[in-house]
């Protein structure tokens, strides 16, 4: 019972279809958790249920020792930074951040809002309209708006997906810094494994409304528990293992091209900067491989020898 937030047998349904099926998950105070999975896996639905925007069909949500399953979202002390930021267009940045504090009738409003804006580095933007800000700035306002409420859990819906590559790195560091400074428990939803690996303390990989694997970024990266997780973190060639009855998975870089016992035909080739990527049609199935960019390119249609070294494969219980 050391868990700060726990989801117990949580089942969520839209209309007749089950979106999340008897999910169990425990999260400790101050953790930074990523809910990772493809669209439709139930990660956003789970997040909305934690926020209270969606009532579970069955199951329990406990937060800080209290059953909040039927508690209204306005009383849960959960913050949510929407993917589209959801700033109030008719209010200034200051008033957006002050919105929740005003409803709580808290004193020291100006100081608290100023502190919130300072945390996200937007002190000079208090009087602007949200529409006059860039996407990254709008997201910071949304973050400040949630943070000033001192939520027990801060939820973030795809926090980096609307930002360009440069801003993404900046925001990632920002989120980590905010989390360190405030100690708030954060859960963010993402479909991008790189984002989850870089940001989270623990990753929850979801598929079809169920948890596929929970683990540290290192564990998810090096010891995927299933073919699905393996594929999701870049083990793109997954083949059955006749010796164990399970399966073996290789990253493209683990496949040896140019020599080996197998032969395949190059169906597709692309240059990706540091390396070249190849898709091979083989008797074993489709194999994805890559070579350093310094190796001369292979032409599509060419037949090539390759090897799938066991030593560089990850063992899976099943494909």
């Amino acid at each position: 019972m050391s868990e700060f937030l726990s989801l117990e047998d949580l089942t969520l349904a839209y209309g007749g279809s089950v979106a999340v099926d008897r999910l169990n998950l425990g999260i400790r105070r101050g953790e930074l958790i990523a809910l990772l999975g493809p669209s439709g896996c139930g990660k956003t639905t789970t997040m909305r249920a934690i926020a209270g925007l969606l009532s579970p069909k069955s199951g329990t949500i406990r937060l800080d020792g209290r059953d909040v399953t039927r508690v209204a979202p306005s009383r849960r002390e959960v913050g949510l930074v929407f993917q589209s930021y959801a700033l109030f267009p008719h209010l200034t940045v200051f008033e957006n951040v002050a919105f929740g504090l005003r409803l709580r009738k808290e004193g020291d409003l100006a100081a608290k809002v100023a502190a919130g804006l300072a945390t996200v580095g937007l002190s000079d933007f208090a009087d602007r309209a949200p529409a006059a800000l860039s996407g990254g700035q709008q997201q910071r306002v949304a973050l400040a708006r949630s943070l000033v409420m001192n939520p027990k859990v801060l939820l973030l819906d795809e926090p980096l997906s609307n930002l360009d590559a440069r801003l993404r790195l900046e925001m990632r560091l920002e989120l980590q810094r905010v989390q360190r400074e405030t100690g708030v428990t954060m859960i963010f939803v993402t479909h991008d494994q790189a984002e989850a690996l870089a940001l989270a303390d623990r990753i929850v990989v979801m598929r079809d409304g169920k948890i596929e694997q929970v683990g540290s970024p290192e564990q998810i990266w090096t010891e995927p528990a299933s073919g699905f997780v393996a594929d999701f973190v870049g083990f793109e060639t997954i083949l059955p293992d006749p010796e164990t009855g399970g399966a073996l998975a290789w990253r493209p870089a683990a496949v040896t091209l140019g020599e080996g016992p197998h032969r395949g035909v190059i169906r597709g080739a692309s240059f990706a900067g540091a390396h070249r990527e190849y898709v091979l049609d083989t008797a074993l199935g489709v194999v994805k491989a890559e070579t350093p960019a310094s190796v001369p390119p292979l032409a599509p249609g060419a037949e090539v020898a390759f090897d799938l070294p066991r030593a560089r494969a990850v063992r899976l219980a099943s494909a």
Partner: protein
Amino acid sequence: MNGRLAAWAVLGLVLTFLIGPFLIIIAAALSAGESLAFPPQGLSLKWVVKVFEIESFRASFGVSMFLAVFGTLAALALGVPAAYGLNRYRVPGAEAVRTIVSAPIIVPGIIVGLALLRYLVIPTGVGIGPALFLAHTALILPYAVRVVSASLENLRTDIEEAAVLLGCTRFGAFRRVVLPNIRGGVLAAFILGFVTSFNQVPVSLFLSGPGVRTLPVDMIAYMEINYDPSVAALSALLAFMSVAIVFAAEKFLGFSKYV
């Protein structure tokens, strides 16, 4: 070159047709003569002054104003929640409701007026006044629902969820977040409703009685007895009022983007 000339000619004809009557009415209103005529006989403001002296015009102007203002407010009180409900929730039969709400635009006013007179006023003994008020509210409702729906469609729904998570009730979120952001649409609906109600003739024609008569109906009645330029003067004043309202609306809130 000939094509261009023809285009200008057509444009000229269309403009003459659209604006011509307006110019003729203004000219007739400024006549010094005793009867409604064009071209005017002499130039004078006496008929414009006369308009304000005619007792029945003052009374029916009051009726029309009351109907236009409060009928529109009533239509908005019904129409804004209706538009919100139709927009945000998957209500069974939403399309049917939309169609029914639009019916007063499609059904000819004469039919609405006759039906209300024959099946509401006569059998139930409801006064002409309340019947007129109900009729105008119903006639404005489609505009209220449509214009407000259009603004709601342009408004994100997640801001309501954000407001709820920051401590609002559902209704609080509507009041603090939705309403301020559809204000332009609501105002546009009000103006459209006001003008529609004020210019309404066919329904009001059936629903008029002693002491309760809208201005346009009163003007028709007046003209049947007195064929003098005061009606032209009043028409010109009303036209200027409508133009002023729409002009102000366009200037201050970009009216044309809502309708």
